[in-house]
């Protein structure tokens, strides 16, 4: 057992590359997962029959099979249809498609949590349905979906380890390969574990930052100075009658 070796692994180019790969996989898959989820949620929101069938089929397929299965399936089956993608692209594709199914449910619950009266009020002011979504529904839904989305962010980071089965050189694969070369499992896996914890910690911090940014009251406190300035400078102060 050698702490020096753990440190040596931590700063080694292989581990750094592996951690970078894990981070890239996570961020790319989350991004496309959210895009897919948003599209699915909006389709469901539109309440058309065809839309409901499509989204239901999607959720059934991608929530109903293991992610590992989806990764292996995409990597091994697509080439036989003449679609040749790199292992990285296959990994992001599989993780995004899977993530999209879960994101769709989270986003849908967020959109539904904004009550119907809010939409009516927006329409009554003369907004188009696009403006209603953009200005009234989505800003309020965003605050509701953030905590479960934080869960998904961290879950995705850990899920990304699965793509080691299709030989994407991510953190866990690097650690495992390093360890099996000289049987220093403790040191190699500890180094990987430290990287994982560091990244999840960063994600949690990011979530706190976004939650603050989306909280209108905290945001207003930060902005109050300039608003006060504007009120004193250009308009009369409100409190004076």
């Amino acid at each position, binding site marked *: 057992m050698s702490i020096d070796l753990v440190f040596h692994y931590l700063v080694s180019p292989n581990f750094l590359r592996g951690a970078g790969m894990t981070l890239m996989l996570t961020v790319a898959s989350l991004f496309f997962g959210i895009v897919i989820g948003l599209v699915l949620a909006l389709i469901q929101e539109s309440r058309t029959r065809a839309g409901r069938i499509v989204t239901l089929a999607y959720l059934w397929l991608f929530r109903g099979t293991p992610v590992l299965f989806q990764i292996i399936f995409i990597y091994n089956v697509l080439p036989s249809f003449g679609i040749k993608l790199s292992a990285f692209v296959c990994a992001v594709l599989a993780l995004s498609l899977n993530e999209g199914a879960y994101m769709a449910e989270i986003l849908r619950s967020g959109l539904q949590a904004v009550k119907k*009266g*809010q939409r*009516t*009020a*927006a*329409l*009554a*002011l*003369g*907004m*188009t349905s696009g*403006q209603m979504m953009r*200005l*009234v529904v989505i*800003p*309020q839904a965003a*605050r509701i979906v953030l905590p479960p989305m934080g869960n998904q962010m961290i879950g995705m980071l850990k899920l990304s380890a699965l793509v080691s089965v299709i030989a994407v050189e991510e953190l866990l694969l690097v650690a495992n390969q390093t360890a099996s070369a000289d049987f220093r499992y403790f040191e190699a896996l500890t180094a990987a574990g430290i990287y994982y914890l560091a990244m999840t910690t960063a994600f949690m911090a990011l979530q706190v930052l976004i939650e603050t940014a989306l909280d*209108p*009251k905290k945001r*207003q406190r930060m902005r*109050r100075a300039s*608003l006060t300035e*504007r*009120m004193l400078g*250009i*308009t*009369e102060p*409100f*409190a*004076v*009658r």
Partner: protein
Amino acid sequence: MQHLLEIVGINKSFGPTRVLKNCSLTVNPSETVVVIGPSGSGKSTLLRCVNLLETLDSGDILFEGENITKSRQPAHLWRRQIGMVFQNFELFGHLSAVENIMLAPVKILGLSRDDAHDIAGDLLRKVQIPEKADAFPDELSGGQQQRVAIARALAMRPKLMLYDEPTSALDPEMIREVLDVMTTLSAEGMTSIVVTHEMGFARRAADRIVFMEKGEIIESAGSDQFFNGTVNERARRFLDQILH
């Protein structure tokens, strides 16, 4: 004088339930019309139809002489000229009072934030809560929320205001402050249709009272005639019920 609003024989059903039966009503500029009647009589649906929030089964609604139910102009453009106030206020929870008022003028009418801010300030003074400009809806009492909601509707400079039971969700001590604002607006000539159970307000502010029951407009009479003169038997019974 041209009518501002003319509702001509409108019908509306929700499934098998006929909510509006051949309703007709005209509203002149600067007039305040109070709509009363038992719950479920179709009062709110009537208002929602005027704002094109419901589609009619048949009949016409003319706004400044133009048939808005069969118009080529999309519904949201008509709604910009008609303000609406709801029973549950429906202020946007993610925006402060002043931002609630500024949102539509800035995003829909394209006003600058400074201009909209000035307008919002004036309106908050008008509804008597200038000091609450930066408060969020959950920091305001019901009465204050409803007054901000009125200001939000006024910010679009509507030609017609629709109030859908604006005081029904309020504690008794807050009803007055909202009705006072509405009374002032009516006195200043804002054309209004008010669905309410507040008979005091009806006496004070209404030019005309419309009584609805089971989807039909039973009676439409001047305020004096309605309260002091002879009215329809069913309207009389309803009045006796709520006044005693």
